[in-house]
């Protein structure tokens, strides 16, 4: 498969901007020597982060951060009409290992809003409209051997959600949130990774075909802490997931893995922001997606900012797409903004390849039937990424899901 950076039906753009050290916004927050915690300012988003939906104008689709999203398919999440009738119901089942607590709390609970503010209108709408938040706490120095499970089954309607995963210092946990069913959903997920803690957070979007789901997943990574975020999107009509990472102190690590499979007509969008405003932190992004069918659309936008204060940063982001049939579209846009040269490394790569007739012919000419040939290629494409997740139970489940996608659609 030839990697084509600008083939028909796909776009790939990339940019690296290097600013003068110390230029631009005054930086604040831990590690910068300034006291107040200020929100990151995205490279390409002009509206200031806010908890209040009214601080954001209704998007028109011309904004940089909304230009790929089919607004008319969001069931009003972006313009306030969905919020007027938010009577949807989720069936939520929790699997809590010993020592882990889960609480439903009101919006005045002081554990909310610590990881970061909503950065777009839908996230702010979710924050303004949710009724009760779920706070899951893994106590200090608790090392879990079983994953925390949050199964969310949408039973229709519109609903706004807020989830806080609070992993206290030196605790280690795997948290899996699994979305099934249907409905129109907007949510904020806050991931607090305490000093020296390790969190693997897996978010699976296995919705019914007609669901709409927009979520901001905001992580604050503590000193010498490590976060592994795994976002897996198979189902839904429009799914837009926005993982964000900031570092509270030096030594933090974040691996962000993503896997998506877009079928005919589906819009699956993943936007990432990693804000390196703290020295000696590491980030690594690998997102891979396959597409098949008419008007299958995947969007991947990866923004990495390296602030002037973030000396010793090591970051890389990588997006790969495999287009299995005609009629699918990929937009892949890595963006790297660097304000200091005193870093270990920074880079990005994006490639969109096709499973083409020549590959199919080659495999068939070795006796392999067409369907099996396609499966062989897709399995191979995802296998390396799945292995990096490091949680056997989830890896097996994902491989099964990929098989099921292929069975159903190829």
């Amino acid at each position: 498969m030839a990697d084509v950076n600008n083939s028909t039906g796909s776009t790939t753009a990339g940019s690296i901007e290097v600013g003068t050290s110390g230029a631009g916004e005054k930086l604040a927050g831990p590690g910068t020597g300034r006291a107040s915690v200020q929100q990151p300012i995205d490279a390409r988003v002009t509206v200031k982060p806010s908890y209040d939906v009214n601080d954001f104008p209704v998007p028109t689709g011309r904004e940089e951060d909304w230009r790929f999203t089919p607004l008319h398919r969001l069931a009003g999440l972006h313009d306030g009409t969905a919020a007027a009738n938010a009577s949807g119901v989720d069936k939520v089942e929790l699997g809590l290992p010993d020592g882990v607590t889960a609480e439903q709390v009101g919006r005045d609970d002081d554990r909310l809003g610590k990881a970061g503010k909503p950065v777009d209108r839908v996230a702010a709408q979710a924050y303004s409209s949710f009724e009760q938040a779920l706070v899951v706490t893994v106590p200090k120095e608790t090392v879990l051997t079983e994953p925390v499970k949050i199964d969310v089954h949408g039973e229709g309607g519109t609903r706004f959600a807020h989830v806080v995963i609070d992993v206290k210092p030196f605790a280690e946990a795997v948290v899996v949130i699994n979305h099934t069913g249907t409905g129109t959903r907007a949510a904020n997920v806050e991931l607090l990774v305490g000093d020296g803690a390790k969190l693997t957070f897996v978010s699976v979007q296995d919705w019914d075909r007609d669901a709409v789901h927009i979520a901001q997943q905001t992580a604050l990574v503590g000193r010498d802490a490590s976060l592994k975020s795994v976002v897996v999107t198979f189902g839904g009509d429009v799914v837009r997931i926005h993982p964000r990472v900031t570092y509270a102190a030096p030594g933090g690590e974040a691996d962000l893995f993503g896997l998506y499979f877009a079928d005919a007509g589906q819009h699956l969008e993943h936007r990432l922001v990693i804000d390196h405003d703290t020295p000696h932190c590491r980030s690594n992004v690998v997102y891979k997606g396959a597409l098949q069918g008419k008007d299958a659309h995947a969007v991947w936008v990866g923004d990495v900012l390296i602030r002037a204060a973030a000396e010793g940063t090591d970051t890389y982001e990588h997006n790969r797409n495999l287009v299995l049939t005609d009629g699918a579209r990929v937009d892949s846009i890595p963006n790297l903004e660097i304000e200091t040269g005193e870093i270990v490394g920074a880079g990005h790569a994006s490639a969109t390849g096709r499973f083409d007739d020549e590959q199919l012919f080659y495999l068939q000419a070795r006796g392999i039937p067409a369907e099996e040939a396609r499966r062989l290629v897709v399995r191979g494409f995802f296998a390396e990424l799945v292995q990096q997740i490091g949680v056997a139970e989830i890896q097996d489940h994902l491989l099964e899901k990929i098989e099921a996608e292929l069975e159903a659609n190829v």
Partner: protein
Amino acid sequence: MATLEIRDLHVSVEAENGPREILRGVDLTVKQGETHAIMGPNGSGKSTLAYSLAGHPKYTVTSGSVLLDGENVLDMTVDERARAGVFLAMQYPVEVPGVSVSNFLRTAATAVRGEAPKLRLWVKEVKEAMAALHMDPAFAERNVNEGFSGGEKKRHEILQLELLKPKIAILDETDSGLDVDALRQVSEGINRVASSGEVGTLLVTHYTRILKYIKPDYVHVFSAGRIVESGGAELADKLENEGYASYVKGGASE
């Protein structure tokens, strides 16, 4: 004994201004144990013959027949032809990222043999075949044809020939792009397979160079989409000395 019978084969491709006929009545019979060299100038249609037999979708058979032991090959899909025993070693094998050579070989062997080879025997079989072709064992863990040199690609094609044991092997310009050592080693591989007597080989080539290593039973000269002369190995000597000039003048050389 397996026999491939090609009768009055006409093949066209889609061109800008409608279909263009490339093969214009090919007649050829290849039996198990025989080696036939198909030689001809560029554009004479010899690669088209190779790909048409394998079933490449770009080529449309407009008339004629191809039978393998009486079975109509033209009615079969590409993978059915391979499972029936037709193998095409390609001039430009494509990359298949994400699929390792070992996984690919085992999948292909399972498809062609109709059952998964026993793992222990299989590993040994692959190891020995690779060693015979002077291939590094680490090769098996690389992705199919990804970043392979010209020589590695051809060795990989002949490795598949050895493992899949077809009835009819069509080798399309397997000699192109090989240095002398690689040419010799690849030729030895082809000879090993041929010496079993189980395969009929159709060696498609532009140059006589490979015929120093592989002795054909028959040589056919291809020009303007058909076989214009057939003979024994001595015909290759004539081509070596005189080239194709006497075959192309006056004839269309598409």
